[in-house]
């Protein structure tokens, strides 16, 4: 049961800001109406965040990753289930990776 102080500190930092986002949103946004620009910014945040996250590794990934990405999006649109989309995408990426002799 190893618990290193630096890891503990990082976890507490993450937990603190995460709870602040959850509870602070209710406590602050219901009392104070943020300026329209901030409201619009918050609406755009989730999509832009996930796009910014996936773009660099996607472009660096190569054919198996690109094929897997297409499969994930298609399966998600078709069955609307994150679990199914992830499994299908990983299966395709892993399969192509092995088929192309890249190991794994």
């Amino acid at each position: 049961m190893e618990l290193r102080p630096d890891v503990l500190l990082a976890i507490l930092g993450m937990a603190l800001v995460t709870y602040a986002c959850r509870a602070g949103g209710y406590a602050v946004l219901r009392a104070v109406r943020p300026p329209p620009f901030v409201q619009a910014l918050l609406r755009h945040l989730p999509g832009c965040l996930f796009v910014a996250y996936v773009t660099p590794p996607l472009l660096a990934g190569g054919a198996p990753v690109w094929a897997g990405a297409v499969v994930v999006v298609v399966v998600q649109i078709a069955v609307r289930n994150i679990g199914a989309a992830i499994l299908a995408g990983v299966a395709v990426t892993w399969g192509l990776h092995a088929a192309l002799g890249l190991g794994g």
Partner: protein
Amino acid sequence: MASLPLWVGMLPFGVVIGVLSAAKGLSFAETALMTSLVFAGSAQLVALELWADPAPVLAATIAALVVNLRMAPMGAALAPWLDRLRGWKLWGSLATLVDHSFAMAIAEQRAGGRDAGYLLGNGLGIWVSWVVTVMAGHLGGGLLQVPPGHPLFFAAIAAFLSILVPLWRGARVDALPWLVAGLVALAAHRAGWPVPLPLLLGTFAGAGLGAWIELRGRGAPGWKP
């Protein structure tokens, strides 16, 4: 329980986080603590991606803040329910708030539901199953010793791609902001800037542009959570 089909769908997501935690050298206890206290899959995934030894305290905290800012408007949208709660039920409900329980609560609220406990019940159910799945992933990952660069880790990208699908509100609203977010993140990444800077810059460049276009296009819009 209404959340049953939902947490079956979340299973692979939790397992991936567990496997990645093990691969990044987090102990069972550390993984359990992060999962139960932070309880935010996307934030955990992003933080684990930039994880190093010693732990990147500031980078992980900033990453969690950026990723979870999106939850702030959720609490405000649920205010009609939350206002009826007091004490631990109120702050506990907020602690278990995640994208899925929010989506279900909003649907229930729009259908005329008046039971504020619905949010806490669903949230707790998701929390328990989430912690169990991540820990199972950690045990499995520790046994299998999945090496870095293994195609299994495509699951992290896959998780975010599938989250993006329901977030798409049409080309007119999202195409340009998403394109800019991706390009800025890519440029910062290629320039060798440290994590989570590429994520941070890409996110705010895209969202800022989206907000600017929106306000310029139709004056000041109302608050639509």
